[in-house]
């Protein structure tokens, strides 16, 4: 039965992508499918999370949410399309805090994310940890900082691409630890290749998702980890060592064009809150190794300016050194 429904949904999604929606905005919202723009490519963790929650949400919202992939130009292609979309609640975007608050400090963007979007909510977050090889002489994060300060340019760090989801938090962490100019940053094309580079010992350490690290077992050692409580025994969190607690947390956020009618925004937020108690959703989200940690829009709106300020400080610091 389940499978049958999903097939229909999949076929429906193909058709909807192909044909586009037909507009009529009289009856109660939502009375046609909602489009969720992903400014990222297929197969990443955003895509995976989107597939999970959109496969359950029709039960609550009464209408499907259709994922539309618009990758390219570090998220700018999808984000600018969403920024230009009508603020009628039928176009949303599934983004993350680095596209939302960091990018504007390093690039000239054709939109202003603060003016263009309001947060519906943060679905959950991807958390990163710093890992070294199990046989590394660096036993703790403090060891690493000390070594880097004494040997500038000796340690190599593998990340998933410039200003991407592991490059940005790593720079933030290195800046706070005072080693941003002492580390060689080696870019790889995505999280997978950066892990290969690390395992092949081309790089000494890397940032990875906690779930990816768990699959590696005893080959790697975790030095420091995101979150309020460490997932790895005997390992401190960023907060424990006095760093900004948000480092290494990639919030997967749902944004709507800012002019969205208040009742529609409330309806979406209501649906997302209800989603957290949905049995199938709970099972699936656990299965893909994520957590239920929904942050509702108004609360998340408070975090946005804080993120922006922290990123700006970090970028300014990096510019000064150059």
């Amino acid at each position, binding site marked *: 039965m*389940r*499978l049958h429904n*999903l097939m229909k*949904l*999949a076929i429906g*999604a*193909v058709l909807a*992508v*192909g044909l586009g929606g037909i507009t009529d905005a009289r009856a109660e919202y939502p009375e046609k499918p909602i489009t969720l723009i992903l400014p990222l*490519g*297929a*197969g*990443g963790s955003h*895509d*995976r999370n989107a*597939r*999970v929650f959109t*496969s359950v949400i029709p039960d609550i919202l009464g209408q499907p949410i259709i994922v*539309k*992939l*618009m*990758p*390219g*130009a*570090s998220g*700018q*292609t999808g984000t*600018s*399309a969403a920024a230009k979309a009508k603020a009628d609640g039928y176009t949303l975007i599934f983004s993350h805090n680095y596209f939302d608050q960091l990018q504007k400090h390093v690039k000239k963007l*054709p939109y202003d994310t603060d003016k263009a979007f309001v947060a519906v909510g943060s679905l959950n977050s991807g958390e990163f940890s710093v890992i070294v090889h199990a046989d590394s002489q660096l036993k703790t994060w403090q060891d690493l900082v000390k070594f880097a300060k004494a040997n500038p*340019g000796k340690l*190599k760090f593998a990340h998933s691409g*410039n*200003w991407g989801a592991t490059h940005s938090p790593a720079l933030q962490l290195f800046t706070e630890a005072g080693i941003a100019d002492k580390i*060689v*940053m*080696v*870019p*790889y*094309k*995505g999280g*997978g*290749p950066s*892990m*290969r*580079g690390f*395992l*092949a010992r*081309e790089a000494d350490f890397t940032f990875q998702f906690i*779930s*990816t690290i*768990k*699959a*590696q*077992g005893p*080959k790697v050692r975790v030095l420091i980890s995101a979150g309020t409580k460490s997932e790895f025994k005997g390992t401190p969190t960023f907060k424990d060592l006095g760093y900004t607690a948000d480092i290494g947390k990639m919030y997967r956020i749902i944004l709507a064009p800012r002019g969205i009618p208040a009742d529609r925004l409330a309806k979406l937020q209501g649906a997302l809150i209800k989603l957290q108690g949905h049995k199938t959703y709970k099972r*699936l989200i656990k*299965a*893909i*190794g994520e957590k239920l940690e929904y942050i509702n829009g108004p609360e998340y709106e408070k975090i946005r300016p804080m993120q922006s300020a922290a990123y700006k400080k970090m970028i300014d610091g990096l510019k000064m050194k150059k």
Partner: protein
Amino acid sequence: MFESFLGGFAILFNPETVVMTFVLMSTGLFLGMFVGALPGFTTLMALAILLPISFFIHPLLGIPFLLGVYKGGIYGGSIPAILVSMPGTGAAVATTFDGPALTKKGEARKALEIALFSSVTGDLTSDLITIALIGPIAAVALLLGPPELAAILMMALIVIAGTSSGVFVKGLLMLAVGLFLGMIGQDPIGALSRFSFGITEIEAGIPILPMLIGLFALPEIFVAIEKKATEIIDAASVKISGARLSWLEFKGCLRTIFRSTAIGTSIGMIPGVGQVVAAFMGYAAAKSASKTPEKFGKGELEGIAAAEAANNAVNGPTLVPLLTLGIPGDNLTVILVGAFIAHGLRPGPQLMEEQGPLVFAILIAMVLANILFIFIGYICIPLFAKVVTIRKSLLLPLTLVFAFAGTWVFRSNPYDLAILVIFGALGYMAKKLQFDVTPLAMGFILGQPLEYAFGQTVILSSGNLVSYIFLERPITAAIIVLTPLITYLMWRRSMRLRRQFGAEE
């Protein structure tokens, strides 16, 4: 290891699930071929949309289903490439070099058959290699890093340049243009904008699918419109049953198929390179090894065989880094990660130890999928081949619609349509001036990973490039030393061939 392998058989042939496994795998193959054949719908999109299905069913049903879509999609892309010169997926680009020419000769069916048999042979062989050598392949994946990749790509480009047929300077020029086009946008290392003139839409580079559809499909349509409809394909000569592949012809391609399989398998072992590059390298190698390189690009069966065997041969080995090291080899395998972890299976070294039999069951299913692949593909070919019997006055506008619609569904970005038209015009001009666009596509596709890998190598070397390569990366050093030697041998060979057959041209 061997115990796990036998355990895999037991799991796969569990009487309760085995029928469903094969039914779903066949469905996946058919869906994959269908989606792959639709221009603009990539295999990646199909997998992403179908992924949730695997959340709700047993991993031994869901994962083979997705693998079916994956394999079918890579082959499916070759169907429009052969019939209307429009690559259905990126992996099929190299198939547009020879496929359409065969279609024009009324040999569409033969071309589709060689594509299918090469795909399956490449896929099957590489899957068997994967199972037999799963441990060593994992080790190789770690040995081949950015420096090795850069050296291999450099060698491929030099070989392509040195052995191009036709007017040498023209080929070289197009290759250079392709390399240049590949540099437009942000540079991969420092994210500095180059030649984009502030146009945000090409900051991330020229999108490949619209460009290639424009370059290959649009000129064909324009040229066809120019001539009288009847001259393009003599409808009477293309009977649906006509011109099938003979055993002799297939045997003639076997060398090429196995060479391409070897190339595809090696490319598949390196995470993050993928089918497109493999198809190009397979094609280039076949051309430089051929006794009649001048026939390539004009409807050479071996050309299709080379590209199709190479791109499908990538499929098996890309799974190895995923299953053994937890590193997904390409975007397609990233999606498979989702299917695995939804069932609490985390691909990585732990998985192999704890769930060895299950991993092997999936790999065995992958091998058996190839048998289904042959049947399903063979049944569908007459169906697809019928496309060429559609009247030109209907087919041409339809192809044009597909070119634009395909570009649109790719990312729903209006600028992609502009790219399509610009490259359509460029391709048409090139055709009129008798410039071959193949080297341009090769330069564009191979140049980008080369630049990235070279940049990474420079960073990794901390500024001492020479000592880094010769002291720490012996494989890279070996490839660099061999490059001029191989190029010289290839060049001498092509010169000798040219002298021998030169009079005929």
